[in-house]
């Protein structure tokens, strides 16, 4: 496999995605650029409508018919995924890049046994005979700590609990030892104690396989525990990227600052009023001119409402999109 040792594993450049809706064309992702290095965990955080999930789906070209990628490049191992034909992109999905979705029940096939589903990518991408692929599936399920894995190969997804289904998804994702795993809110539907188990497992197995991980989440606690670097999205754009410690220690962009300040349960604020970000997230179909955060920003000036700020170096390897810095 041709590995580009100098550049990043994944390099997303100026990605824009829009959706046809009954209210016209809505730009969900607008000029997003970021990279992921081999083996690292990048968290993409943002609130609903920020474009984080659409970004994730676009990387593997999994958008539904209403969505289209308008521009940009997604360079993976030096190859632009957006240029590939349907067959070529299929050969990458589940092989070199795997995806884990939020709702394991709807991403598993209800009429196929667990064993077959985990074995399928191995058979498909490696041409391994069924018997061997099933044996490998058994090993993977066991490795994902499904209790009594050999006996459960013939089970169907409905016989599994939510946590076990997500373990199955992780086993499937890791089946072909991908270089990159994209996990879109992988534990949002799970209970707290199970969520912690699943994320710890995901982190441990990705480290073991030396895979990079893109973790899409809205949970700032999860980001703090598992991410190396963070990209913060707002209204379809990345407003700040930094390594996790810098971002939490000293958020630069006013939106990131507001987000950090509004987290409840942090010592010092307990029992007192929380700092909030005034107003509502913008309507993507009617974005204000200039910086989309300006209407909610305490520091906004006239200039903020004129031009969209670019993501620029903000010291220490960080980037922020704000002209007031």
């Amino acid at each position, binding site marked *: 496999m041709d590995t580009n040792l100098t550049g990043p594993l994944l390099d997303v450049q100026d990605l824009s995605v829009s959706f046809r809706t009954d209210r016209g064309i809505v730009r969900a992702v607008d000029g997003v650029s970021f990279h992921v290095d081999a083996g690292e965990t990048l968290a993409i955080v943002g*609130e609903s409508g920020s474009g984080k999930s659409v970004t994730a789906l676009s990387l593997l070209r999994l958008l539904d018919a209403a969505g289209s990628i308008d521009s940009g490049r997604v360079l993976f191992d030096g190859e632009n995924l957006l240029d590939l034909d349907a067959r070529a992109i299929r050969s990458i999905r589940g092989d070199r890049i795997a995806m884990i979705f939020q709702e394991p029940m709807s991403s598993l096939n209800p009429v196929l046994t667990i064993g077959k589903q985990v074995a399928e990518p191995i058979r498909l991408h490696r041409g391994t005979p069924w018997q061997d692929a099933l044996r490998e599936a058994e090993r993977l399920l066991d490795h994902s700590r499904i209790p009594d894995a050999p006996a459960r190969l013939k089970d169907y997804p409905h016989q599994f609990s939510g946590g076990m289904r997500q373990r199955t998804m992780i086993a499937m994702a890791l089946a072909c030892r991908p270089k990159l795993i994209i996990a879109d809110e992988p534990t949002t539907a799970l209970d707290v104690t199970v969520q912690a188990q699943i994320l710890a497992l995901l982190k441990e197995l990705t480290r073991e396989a030396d895979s990079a991980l893109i973790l899409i989440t*809205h949970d700032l*606690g999860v980001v703090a525990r598992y991410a190396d670097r963070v990209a913060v999205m707002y209204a379809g754009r990345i407003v700040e990227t930094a390594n996790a410690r810098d971002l939490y220690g000293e958020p630069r962009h006013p939106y990131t600052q507001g987000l950090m300040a509004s987290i409840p349960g942090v010592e010092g604020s307990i029992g007192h009023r929380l700092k*909030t970000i005034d107003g509502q997230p913008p309507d993507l179909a009617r974005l204000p001119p200039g910086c989309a955060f300006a209407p909610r920003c305490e520091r906004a000036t006239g200039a903020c409402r004129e031009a969209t700020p670019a993501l620029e170096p903000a010291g220490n390897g960080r980037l922020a999109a704000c002209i007031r810095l």
Partner: protein
Amino acid sequence: MNDQAPLLSVTDLAVHFPVIRGVVFQREIGSVKAVDGVSFELKRGETFGLVGESGCGKSTTALAILRMLRATSGRIVFEGRDITDLGVGELRPLRRRMQMVYQDPFGSLNPRMRARDIIGEPLVVHGLADDRTAYRARVQELMDLVGLLPDMADRYPHEFSGGQRQRIGIARALALEPSLIICDEPVSALDVSIQAQVVNLLMDLQEELGLTYLFIAHDLAVVRHISDRIGVMYLGRLVEVAHRDELFENPRHPYTQALLAAVPIPDPVREAQRDHELIAGEVPSVQNPPPGCRFHTRCPQAMPQCRTDSPDLGPLGSSLVACHLYA
């Protein structure tokens, strides 16, 4: 009424649901003990948080207190009166005193009603809307109280954002001037920045109106922020009740400890220093809970006694804990 008396006291509450098999010849083959022997008190003006994972019985407890579900056994005393067995006719005045704010600001508002009518509906239902002018003024006052603008009164729910919809739900709950508000996951459907606005609103209203909250949530950070005391539930039982700071700084029950260890702290530096001792397994089925202490199947400190004897909630320092470790 004595101000020192608790506003609400729940004693040994149980809510069991029958499990029925058969179509023609139906027979009861067992029961789901959704809530099984829960006791706690709410003081006037305090916020009592109830936390736990799915199936722990926190929402069932709330519905039993509101008398939307019948208690199988136990006592519910509210404002000095035993309300456990009140008949339908007697329930109506009770409803004015306790109200609920729901989780889903989308599903809990009638999409065909205007905001003003949703907020005013409890007044109409309770026959308090005869004076048209006073009614309108009251709805306006309620909207103002929760931070909704006057020109929003004629809008329909779909024209509001999630946070604004939750404000409508809160205004509706306040319409009858209740003393107790039960909030069932009131902010879990909202984005972080909007969550903070609603949490602040609830705290402001409490101060202004002297409300008592039963605050049910699975998000421990929110519960820690807003509650004075917190009860932790597991499979239909309370396993620990403690003051907020005591619970987070000195959790006693192994389940409380596991729950706190599972929740990540939004601070990478502190997260890196933490020891992530995670418990294995998932919550067992409520229909077939383990004998003895219901947590023993996942408890790292389980002893032989835990498999057979169910521990009672007993005092430990200023807290209440149900665990044989401290017996």
